[in-house]
């Protein structure tokens, strides 16, 4: 994974700290809130897209995440949320995605049918450029990962949170988060190269 300073971190370093923006937003400063949205919306949306495998669902989840964050902004305590506002926001997004999965499990049969149709479509599209084909393959490989491994992998990649913070967000021991990451990477490599 990318270990250098990320875009998110760079943005946070350039502008005011998240916690300051949260305080200003609580006082009714919409511009501070907009700055937070600007800072995180792309990474959050990308994370949700990869997690859900569907851009429309990701958009809905993105909106639901921000609404939920605003609803609970009063209860946000930077010191108790490991990793600060970013971790808190990604935790809300992950919970929203979990809720969606749970409700979607009831429609599993329909989803399986859809996946079958998607596979057929993919098989027909033999004229895909190589990069596009790889992209499709990657998303399919990500979709095949167990849910808990997928969440750790995508949280790490798109939020650039530390493993210790990811473990806090998911409420699991650090070793478990590392194990899920490791297995996700190995499986992804196997699926991509197989």
């Amino acid at each position, binding site marked *: 994974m990318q270990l250098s300073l990320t875009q998110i971190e760079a943005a946070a370093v350039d502008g005011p700290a998240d916690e300051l923006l949260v305080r200003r937003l609580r006082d009714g400063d919409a511009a501070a809130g907009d700055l937070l*949205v600007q800072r995180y*919306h792309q990474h959050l949306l990308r994370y949700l897209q990869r997690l859900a495998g569907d851009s429309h669902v990701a958009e809905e989840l993105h909106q639901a995440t921000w609404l939920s964050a605003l609803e609970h902004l009063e209860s946000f305590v930077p010191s108790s949320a490991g990793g600060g506002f970013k971790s808190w926001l990604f935790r809300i997004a992950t919970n929203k995605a979990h809720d969606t999965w749970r409700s979607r499990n009831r429609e599993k049969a329909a989803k399986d049918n859809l996946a079958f149709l998607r596979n057929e479509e993919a098989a027909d599209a033999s004229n895909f450029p190589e990069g596009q084909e790889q992209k499709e393959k990657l998303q399919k490989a990500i979709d095949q990962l167990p849910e808990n491994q997928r969440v750790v992998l995508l949280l790490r990649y798109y939020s650039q949170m530390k493993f210790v913070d990811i473990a806090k967000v998911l409420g699991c021991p650090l070793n478990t988060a590392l194990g899920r990451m490791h297995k996700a990477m190995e499986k992804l490599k196997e699926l991509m190269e197989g």
Partner: protein
Amino acid sequence: MENDTDHIDDKDAQLLLYLADELNAAEQLQVQRRLESDASLRQQLEKLREVYASMDGRLSQADQLDPIMGAAAAHRCASAAVARWASIRQAKPVQQMHGWKIPVWAWSAAAAACLLIGLLAWQFWPHENVSTLAVAPRQPEELRPSTNQYEEMSSNTNLANAEQELDAVAYLRTLTE
């Protein structure tokens, strides 16, 4: 969700954290020393680094090829929600915004006070209307009518009262039995 297969041994965990630069200085030094002396560990680290770099490259390539669908719309929606929320915040007076919270200890103090008042009221309330029925079950043997009592009762001109008392005694007996 969590199961045994999610765990990795401590050596792998340390390597992962080393690769992610998330070890403290002492731990980092420890891993570096082990790497210097252990060729298989070095090999393992290289393998890990390769897998991570490869996956990192694939994901970033896929992201470059795949513009975020609906990013602008999502941004607009989130910003609008924030603006709406902030305007509602501004409209509310500060006291209402933060809410008038009663501390937790006040609830327990209020409950204790209520209990105390209730006990005091019960203690000092005039109990003359409370019949012996309420006290009697504690001393059932005293309430058993003796022959003398029957005689007294029969000599009493107010038979109705005596009958009432006997009824009460009978009732108490059933209670105590």
